[in-house]
């Protein structure tokens, strides 16, 4: 050890300043005023996903080729990735930070790959996943996405679930509303088969309350779930709306999608700008007729998803913007022969935030037509709902878990929210199931994570190459005369290239940057990540700065 320095002479010293011990003696952690902490945050995609899918995780697993675990990861939040991978409007991609860099990650294509992989490889492995029915009996009214999702999560926990469907086949709007070129029937059937494997019973051709009343159900089942959707087409409120040849979009799609014969003319007008309108037009086109969409605002305000609009345009469907119907022109036999329209201009924004269309006086014109399909929006068929159930102006009133005012009666999907999306319906079904599990099995309700959502500015994009999004292959236009699926799906190579684009916002994926850059070797590698050695970490923040994905947070020392 050191002697009293005054006794030390030159010959006692080393040739230069050399420490007497290793540098480990110097616990530089005491210098720290900021403390780095490994702290995973919420990627914006997950935050934006109505079902809260752990998107980063399944993309990460896909990168490693671990598709099965990726598939299982999705199932925790959404039982039907093959459906949403095809039809979801993917708000996750709108939120994706990569959008600010080059192009967002094609999350729904990845989801579809994993969903299809699951159906082909995972589900087939387990011929049945049926659980012993240990719990109460449950009835689900309506076999749309909300009901299916609710049934899935309860059947998994041993509840005996029966789904009632008024049509001949289950699936609700997934079957009747979405054309097969977007969602093939086989895919839907396979997804529904998952429920059958779990022991869920389907009773089709049964209409509520015509065939089964509320009291009937209450005697047979302990828990009820309403997932009856919103399928009442809104009226145009123009003269001759009831003429022969004016069809409702939802009904038209239902007949077409169930493969029934349908009578339409040679010249078809579709009124509306939502997905129903575009679906109708693309179906009409496939039936070999001339079709034009009329929309009262511009393309920018059009609520249909951009992919659908693009698809319609590719297929040669005309879209007239800033046009509204005034009057259906009819023959003496009250058959449609045309539509009187008026041109519109955009005024100030309305309650939806979109600019209000205003008719331009004297700009009326007529379009010849023998069929008019109105698809200007749907609403909930409130009249079929039991009188005892409390409602809002647009549907069933529930709390955030889907519980209605009536004991053991829950609801979800469009019949609660009004017309919304498949993924929101799936999410509401899951949340209602979680509520039941909480009440019946004491399972804790999942808490909303109060973590920071990672913004683009938080990322260190130095570490990412600009690379375009991998385009989904489509069948050629000449093959789009049938209901064959348009999108071909990613192959494994495309999947790998696309998944590698993921920033993994806010979530450590063990890239080793912190480990490499730490000037004090204070980052220790563990099997499942890293650990700071706070004895030596000076809190310089290089790790946090060089972390490409903001998985490290710097806290003022003492604040944690």
């Amino acid at each position, binding site marked *: 050890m050191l002697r009293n*320095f005054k006794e*030390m*002479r*030159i010959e006692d*010293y*080393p*040739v*230069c*300043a*050399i*420490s*007497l*011990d*290793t*540098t*480990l003696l110097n616990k530089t952690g005491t210098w720290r005023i900021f403390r780095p902490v490994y702290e995973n945050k919420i990627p914006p995609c997950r935050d934006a996903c109505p079902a809260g899918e752990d998107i980063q995780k399944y993309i990460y697993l896909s990168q490693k080729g671990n598709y099965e675990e990726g598939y299982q990861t999705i199932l925790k939040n959404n039982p039907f990735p093959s459906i949403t991978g095809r039809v979801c409007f993917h708000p996750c991609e709108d939120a994706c930070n990569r959008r600010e860099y080059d192009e967002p990650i094609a999350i729904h294509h990845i989801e579809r790959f994993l969903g299809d992989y699951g159906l082909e490889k995972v589900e087939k492995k387990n011929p049945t996943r049926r659980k012993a029915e240990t719990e109460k009996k449950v009835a689900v009214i309506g076999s749309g996405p909300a009901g299916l999702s609710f049934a899935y999560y309860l059947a998994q926990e041993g509840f005996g679930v029966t789904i009632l469907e008024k049509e001949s086949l289950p699936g609700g709007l997934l079957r009747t509303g979405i054309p097969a070129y977007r969602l093939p029937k086989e895919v839907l059937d396979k997804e529904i088969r998952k429920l059958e494997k779990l022991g869920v019973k389907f009773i089709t051709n049964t209409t509520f309350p015509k065939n089964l009343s509320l009291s009937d159900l209450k005697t047979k089942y302990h828990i009820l779930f309403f997932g009856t959707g919103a399928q009442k087409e809104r009226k145009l409120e123009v003269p001759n709306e009831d003429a022969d040849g004016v069809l409702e979009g939802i009904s038209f799609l239902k007949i077409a999608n169930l493969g029934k014969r349908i009578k339409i003319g040679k010249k078809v007008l579709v009124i509306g700008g939502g997905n129903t309108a575009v679906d109708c037009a693309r179906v009409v086109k496939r039936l070999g007729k001339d079709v034009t969409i009329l929309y009262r605002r511009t393309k920018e305000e059009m609520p249909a998803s951009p992919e659908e609009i693009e698809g319609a345009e590719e297929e040669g469907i005309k879209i007239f913007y800033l046009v509204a119907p005034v009057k259906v022109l009819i023959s003496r036999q009250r058959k449609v022969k045309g539509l009187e329209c008026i041109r519109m201009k955009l005024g100030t924004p309305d309650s939806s935030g979109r600019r209000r269309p205003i008719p331009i006086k004297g700009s009326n014109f007529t379009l010849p037509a023998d069929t008019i399909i109105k698809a200007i929006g749907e609403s909930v068929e409130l009249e079929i709902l039991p009188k005892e159930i409390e409602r809002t102006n647009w549907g069933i009133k529930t709390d955030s878990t889907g519980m209605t005012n009536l004991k053991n009666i829950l609801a979800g999907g469009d019949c609660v929210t009004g017309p919304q999306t498949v993924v929101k319906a799936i999410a509401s079904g899951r949340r209602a199931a979680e509520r039941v599990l909480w009440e019946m099995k004491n399972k804790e309700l999942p808490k909303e994570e109060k973590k920071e959502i990672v913004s683009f500015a938080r990322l260190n994009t130095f570490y990412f190459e600009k690379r375009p999004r991998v385009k989904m292959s489509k069948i050629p236009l000449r093959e789009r005369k049938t209901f064959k699926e348009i999108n071909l799906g990613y192959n494994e190579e495309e999947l790998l290239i696309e998944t590698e684009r993921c920033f993994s916002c806010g979530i450590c994926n063990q890239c080793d940057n912190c480990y490499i850059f730490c000037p004090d070797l204070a980052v220790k590698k563990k099997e499942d990540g890293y650990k700071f050695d706070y004895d030596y970490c000076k809190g310089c923040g290089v790790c946090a700065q060089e972390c490409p994905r903001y998985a490290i947070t710097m806290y003022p020392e003492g604040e944690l």
Partner: protein
Amino acid sequence: MKLNEITGVKKVVTGNHAVSYGVLLARAQVIAAYPITPQTQIVELLSEFCATGLLKAKFIKVESEHSAMAACVGASISGVRAFTATSAQGLALMHEMLHWAVGARLPIVVANVNRAMGPGWSVWTDQNDSLSQRDVGMIQLYCESNQEVLDTTIQSFKIAEKVLLPVMVILDAFVLSHTSEPVDIPTLEEVDAFLPPYQPRHYLDINNPQAFGGLTSPDHYYEIRMKIEIAHQEALKVAKKVDEEFKERFGRGYGLIEPYYCDDAKVILVTSGTITGTAREVIDEERRKGRKVGLLKIRLFRPTPKDEIKEVLLRADKIAVIDRNISFGHSGIFAQEIKSIFYNAYRKPPIFDFIIGLGGRDVRSEDIKEIIDYVFKKDYPTEDAIFKGVRL
């Protein structure tokens, strides 16, 4: 390239390549350098030696001279023989790391080609770049010929490793660096016998982990600094011994200083670098005319062989220092050094200072003759520095 074709022969080589051959023969193990005119050829040839396997050294490309010296520091502290070469701004950029090399007592050899500092940009020679590093604590050796460059390079490793101080071998830009002269290149065996492998006395040892150059309190710093000063005193003896041993083996020696016709000289010129060669010619001529003029070449600038210098110069009535450098606001740097040696001497001959040849302007024999004439005429200098050849 074959070793037996390029060594053990007399070759016509530039000063730069003389350095390269010296480093090859010294078996440097790590070379880190950044190119700069007029030094680049040194490391160019060395990189070829490394690429062809003639020299088993790690050649580290770096992004600056600061990094070049940092890499040498790292290499040297791990216990291997390290070399770098630079010039002018490059040396200036290396400055901080030079202190490191000295403070950590690392025997790194640096070849510096004397080039004037910019701006105005110059690639031509003067000594201000190396003299700006006077106080970092490196040994400095100024060379007169390409043969001396090669021999000094080899000697430098031996001196450095004996006293644990970095050594700067200095040669004039273009006058030596790019000028070819016949040079005796020894064989590797001969050099091996003279210069054994480096045996580090302190180095990074993973079995005995220690940190080098850490925080040193006022209680200890001075003593460790004093060791550097003692090493410099030691270096005076070591450099002399190494030169003598070299002479014994290779037949060539240079001394720390070299007096030329000084025994009976009334006036002695003091020079360094290539001006010495020019001055020799002038002295020969003046001597033929019977003028008692001599020449003292300073080879070892740091540590300064003060006693030897004093002993020679005390014989003269007057001294004329020729400085290819300037310390602005004062005078020529060699002149200051020589004057300081005499302050406490029993006799103080008048010392004239001539500043000449800055930025590579030719120093001709006429200029030196004029200097001699001037000093013979004057009893004592009327100004601190005479700016020779400047167009005022």
